[in-house]
């Protein structure tokens, strides 16, 4: 197999071998159902409690406020729909943003079809939500504010603390989708006035198919999955014990090296950004230059299309992603890139490269060299570039 340079860590991450090791006994040895009364299931119960404790501690929360789910999407769906239902008598207005993950946006659309009103706040050119605008959008019937902690495409970190303060001041519940941010940046639910928080295991070197929703004590949320009495009667279904164990281990490992990792990734990220911006003409950086996740880069290259770029990078063993229409499965490019004001044709030429702690300087330099060559090659085939060069020549000859 050729060498793979995996730069799509915002899509998913490698499960840490130490996480896998921690999980393994819970498949074949301690496979009991945690709901059972016999002693054989005790290690499962204990392991789950241990994971819950690690996660609660990571957020400055209480163990009883952590509810395991099957991942970020379920947590987002649960937080929004259950809050809407529980507080509908108080009001039917929800505030979120235009750059949320589809797990939020499509749930918002669903709620709109059920009689709720949703305000989708715009963002600035960096993808930043304005706390002032958010405060202006609050109405007497607003029951929930949901703003993502950090954006999955462009990496922009939102002013969550300020938003939390506004929500608290107005007595409105505040949910944040922290799928990209949890264990990558420090989060304290009390300090940030967060009432609900979604996270997922596989974005932090944990296993896929497991995540959690933090629900502040006292919130009257109904369960989203109906059935047994698991998770204190709020999330039915036999617990994914190995997954929960893996999630706990991943959080433990990630927290221990968060600062060190962020420092290393930031250095490499900034090296990647400065080389691309210096060496590839007609490129732009999407997202905030500094208030962004330490592992995220997102570029737009004029006159070329993202899917072609991805396939050619893949031929060189490089895994990245794009917000072009072809990769989104529709005719429209990424809603996030459109929300930060990119015209369609430029949004089609976007490339997201997201690093991990395993990424090396050599990986980055090789990737930049490939990107340079590929962008040049695709431009030589592009009628848009041809038109651009011609109009530039015309201008030059006039001058």
């Amino acid at each position, binding site marked *: 197999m050729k060498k793979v340079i995996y730069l799509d860590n915002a899509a998913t991450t490698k499960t840490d071998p130490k996480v896998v090791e921690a999980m393994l006994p819970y498949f074949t040895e301690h496979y009991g159902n945690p709901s059972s009364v016999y002693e054989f299931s005790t290690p499962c119960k204990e392991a789950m409690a241990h994971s819950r404790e690690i996660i609660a501690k990571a957020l400055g929360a209480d163990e009883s406020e952590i509810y395991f789910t099957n991942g970020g999407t379920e947590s987002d769906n649960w937080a929004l729909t259950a809050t809407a239902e529980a507080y509908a008598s108080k009001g039917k207005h929800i505030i979120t943003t235009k750059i949320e993950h589809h797990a939020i946006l499509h749930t918002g659309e669903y709620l709109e079809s059920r009689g709720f009103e949703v305000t989708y706040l715009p963002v600035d050119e960096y993808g930043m939500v304005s706390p002032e605008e958010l405060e202006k959008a609050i109405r007497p019937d607003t029951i929930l504010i949901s703003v993502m902690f950090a954006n999955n495409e462009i990496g922009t970190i939102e002013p969550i603390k300020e938003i939390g303060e506004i929500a608290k001041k107005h007595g409105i519940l505040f949910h944040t989708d922290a799928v990209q941010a949890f264990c990558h940046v420090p989060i304290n639910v009390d300090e940030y006035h967060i009432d609900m928080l979604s996270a997922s295991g596989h974005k932090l070197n944990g296993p896929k198919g497991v995540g959690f929703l933090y629900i502040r004590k006292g919130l009257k949320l109904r369960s989203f999955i109906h059935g047994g009495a698991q998770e204190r009667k709020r999330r039915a279904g036999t617990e994914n014990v190995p997954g929960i164990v893996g999630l706990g281990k991943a959080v433990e490992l990630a927290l221990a090296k968060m600062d060190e990792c962020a420092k290393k990734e930031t250095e490499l990220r900034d090296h990647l950004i400065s080389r691309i911006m210096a060496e590839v003409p007609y490129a732009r950086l999407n997202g905030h230059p500094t208030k962004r996740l330490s592992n995220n880069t997102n570029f737009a290259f004029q006159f070329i*299309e993202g899917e072609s770029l991805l396939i050619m990078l893949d031929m060189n063993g490089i895994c990245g992603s794009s917000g072009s229409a072809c990769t989104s*499965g529709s005719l429209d490019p990424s809603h996030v890139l459109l929300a930060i004001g990119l015209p*369609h044709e430029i949004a089609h030429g976007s490339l997201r490269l997201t690093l991990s702690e395993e990424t090396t300087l050599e990986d980055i330099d090789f990737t930049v060299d490939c990107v340079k060559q590929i962008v040049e090659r695709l431009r030589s085939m592009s*009628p848009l570039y041809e038109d651009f060069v011609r109009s530039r020549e015309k201008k030059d000859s006039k001058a």
Partner: protein
Amino acid sequence: MYSEKVMDHFQHPRNVGEIEDASGVGTVGNAKCGDIMRMYLDIDDESHIIRDCKFKTFGCGAAVATSSMATEMVKGKTIEEALLVTNKAVMEALDGLPPIKVHCSLLAEEAIHAALWDYAEKHGIKIEGLKKPKSDISEHDADEEY
């Protein structure tokens, strides 16, 4: 996701480039949707044989591959024969396309037609069976549905 033939034509596209003083040039698609194809034809005025065909494409892997295959299929053919190169024929020659990419092959067919239309207009002739091309970037035909 793509057939071997699509990948081959994407990696090694045939007939990329421009033709100076081309007999006909056609540009279809629009940047908003993410695909633009431009075809250049060099046509013998006597025999109506397409002596050369080149293309430039802004678009995904399928858009590049269908452009490349279409140029190969019309090269050396008469105008009348070239009109028989349909999107279906291009797709079959590429061993198929994913359903979401079928519109790329339609674009290739339209690009050929647009270049032929340009040739006919320049020479004041009428090509039997050729209709005015549907989409052109200059018309901002953004709502075109395929």
